[in-house]
């Protein structure tokens, strides 16, 4: 049976960026930047087509990488959920490149821009591969690529600060990768399979025979721990604020709304397809629930204490990662769907926050303390608007993505009932209040009247067309996520059902 034309897309969505990455390293800086922009646009288109066809046919398909398929060769698997997540990620990537364009030219030296392009291409490829892969080890290989790529993205601007934060990022993330690899090899030792469907069947077999329960749980625990470190779940978040706060705007946006979510998406895949509900329902979720709830509250508390806008936005990521893990830890279909929804909503909002924070900072003499940012939203109205919309979305104002996802999280919590419901609702309430405190404060400061900047600083305020395009696109994305909550949630649930 041959594949239809669109079923061949996943292969090209992974291979094209790989080849572009190699080509970029031999190109001039400007050409490389054009390549990554075009590439991410193509990626969006491809993901969109895949989403359209898979959602329409309510089907998922497997793409064998080579003549010999499962269980001996590598495989890709594409369904509505993968396509939707991929589409969201590539949209965010495109807007991050556009919105941070001006800053990128300042922060990254022209002789290094081609390498920045290469690294971004490889990250794109890793994104597509991790979203589509049907194989645990392939996922690990691309985790490696995305880890090194993110490190390169952080230290691309090559200042003292970024080098330190990149080193810290590297150490914590390698720890995470190591734990993941440990869990993976333990699982392979027990089951002898790496492809998700076979792995799932073998795990079920082991559970039914009650054989090797301890290593089995331990392997899933180690993988969860690895992903938790890499995506900055609360007590493992220490690398995050420096890394996101000091990198160039595009990098922070990409890291916060693409890379860390990618690992979580992979974890969801592992839970649903390899572990099955049983392993997960019995042991891991209660622990996760507590960490997630702690993260939701502590991340916000840290964010309140910040004096720099970017660092505040970075700390709020810690809280938002907590929300996602909260959804996962409910261990129900509704909880998973809400978690995926929050991944989408938070990606859209956080990219916008980082990009507009950068723009506001440019308009305030390149300082991002709240004192310096007073009234900056009046100087660059577009960035002010984007920041306000992003802040409102995170707080959960109806009509924006954040509201819908919080609503779904709460209703999933109510469905779970008992003590869990109490924890979920309490954490949501407290965290939302804290969100309001710091987001409201920053928006108030941004819109406070202040005397105009000196003449010399006016040159920075030249219009940034690319940023405007990116901001409008992201605002629209937030509105779509907020207003079309029902259909999108249905799509996610459809994807999750096809997973099993």
């Amino acid at each position, binding site marked *: 049976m041959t594949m239809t034309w669109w079923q061949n897309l996943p292969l090209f969505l992974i291979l094209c960026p790989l*080849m572009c*990455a190699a080509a970029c390293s*031999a190109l001039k800086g400007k050409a490389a930047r054009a390549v990554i922009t075009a590439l991410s646009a193509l990626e969006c288109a491809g993901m969109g087509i895949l989403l359209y066809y898979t959602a329409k046919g309510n089907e998922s398909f497997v793409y064998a990488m080579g003549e010999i398929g499962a269980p*001996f060769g590598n495989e890709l698997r594409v369904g509505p959920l993968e396509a939707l997540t991929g589409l969201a990620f590539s949209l965010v990537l495109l807007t991050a490149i556009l919105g941070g364009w001006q800053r990128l030219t300042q922060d990254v030296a022209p002789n290094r821009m081609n390498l920045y392009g290469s690294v971004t291409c490889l990250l794109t490829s890793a994104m597509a591969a991790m979203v589509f892969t049907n194989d645990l080890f392939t996922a690990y290989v691309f985790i490696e690529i995305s880890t090194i790529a993110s*490190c390169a993205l952080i230290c691309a601007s090559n200042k003292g600060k970024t080098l330190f934060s990149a080193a810290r990022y590297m150490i914590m993330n390698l720890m995470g990768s190591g734990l993941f690899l440990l869990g993976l090899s333990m699982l392979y*030792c027990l089951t002898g*399979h790496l492809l998700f469907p076979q792995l799932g069947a073998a795990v079920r077999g082991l559970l039914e025979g009650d054989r*090797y329960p301890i290593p089995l749980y331990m392997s899933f625990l180690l993988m969860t721990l690895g992903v938790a470190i890499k995506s900055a779940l609360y007590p493992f978040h220490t690398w995050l604020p420096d890394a996101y706060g000091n990198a160039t705007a595009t990098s922070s946006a990409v890291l916060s709304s693409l890379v860390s979510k990618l690992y979580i998406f992979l974890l969801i895949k592992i839970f649903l397809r390899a572990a099955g509900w049983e392993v997960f329902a019995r042991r891991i979720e209660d622990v996760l629930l507590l960490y997630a709830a702690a993260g939701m509250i502590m991340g916000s508390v840290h964010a309140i204490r910040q004096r*720099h806008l970017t660092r505040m936005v970075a700390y709020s990521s810690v809280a938002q990662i907590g929300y996602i893990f909260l959804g996962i830890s409910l261990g129900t279909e509704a909880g998973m769907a809400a978690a995926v929804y929050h991944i989408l909503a938070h990606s859209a909002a956080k990219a916008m926050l980082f990009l507009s924070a950068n723009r506001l900072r440019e308009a305030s003499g390149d300082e991002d303390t709240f004192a310096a940012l007073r009234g900056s939203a009046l100087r660059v109205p577009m960035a002010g608007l984007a920041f306000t919309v992003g802040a409102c979305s995170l707080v959960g104002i109806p009509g924006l993505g954040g509201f819908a996802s919080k609503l779904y999280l709460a209703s999933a919590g109510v469905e779970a009932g008992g003590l869990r419901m109490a924890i979920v609702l309490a954490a949501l309430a407290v965290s939302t209040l804290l969100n309001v405190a710091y987001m409201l404060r920053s928006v*108030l400061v941004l819109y406070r009247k202040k005397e105009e900047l000196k003449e010399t600083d006016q040159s920075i305020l030249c219009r940034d067309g690319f940023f405007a395009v990116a901001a409008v696109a992201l605002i629209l994305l937030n509105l779509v996520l907020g207003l079309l909550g029902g259909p999108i949630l249905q799509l996610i649930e459809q994807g999750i059902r096809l997973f099993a």
Partner: protein
Amino acid sequence: MKKKNDAFSRLLDWLENGDQALDTEMEDSLSDASPAEHIKQKKKKKADKRKTASKGASAPRRAYADSWWYRTCAVVICLSLIGLLLFTALRLPEFGTADTLIDSELTEYYVEHTLEETGAVNIVTGIILDYRGFDTLGESHVLFIAVCTVLLMLSVRGEKNEALRLKANEYERHFEPEDDLILQSAARILSPLTLVFGLYIIFNGHLSPGGGFSGGAILGAGLILYQNAFGYEKTERFFTYKTFRWVSVCALLFYSAAKGYHFFTGANHLENGISPGVAGNILSAGLLLPLNFAVGCVVACTMYALYTMFRKGEF
């Protein structure tokens, strides 16, 4: 001026300035200076602190990581993690029993079918370049991205700041081996042998143990040895930045294209026109030989580039 301390003014202060204490801490640990300068500054600050402490001024706040409970916690967490992992390892299936891989379907299949389906006598090569070729494709890009990252951080090529380049060159002159007779005589014999041996391992990868990764590492080691003995000038006669760039780019592009063709025809069940050939011949096993060569090129370039970047920051 009397500082107002009522709730409202404190609130306003917080609205505009946030928490000051945290910020100074941050500035302490991160300054814009280069790493070397930063360390110097830190030492100076420490010395200052000690001075103020000895003068009997108020004792400075101890850093978070210095506190005893932090250290105790670190040790306890480490020990418990070690204990937990050992406990788990003891409960894994015993090595060498029938249970080791409970489902050994994969192993059996590979042992029985690799030779016939891929034409590779060396089953490992058959598996990594054919059955699991996608993983290996990713793996060689891991090497590539490692080089890209190191170049991004350390490269002084095309640097506008002339002083930085001169400094790098000056350092280099300092460390350049000074025509070491023993090293040169040894390298004159060893480096060609190493290079040839590396090529042998690469080209024989589908027949005997070895392949692109190990052969490429040997090639890279040979290059590094030659460079160490004879210096940059002589190495640049045949291996410059340009060579590095073109070799690695072409190898990666060829690799991706070849694997892409293989995946595409495989998934669509098309005839790919590549025959495994006669097993055991040097020109056999279809794409495995050129793929091994591409991997070898990437690995050798990566090794040499990493070495020279960490040493000089330029080829």
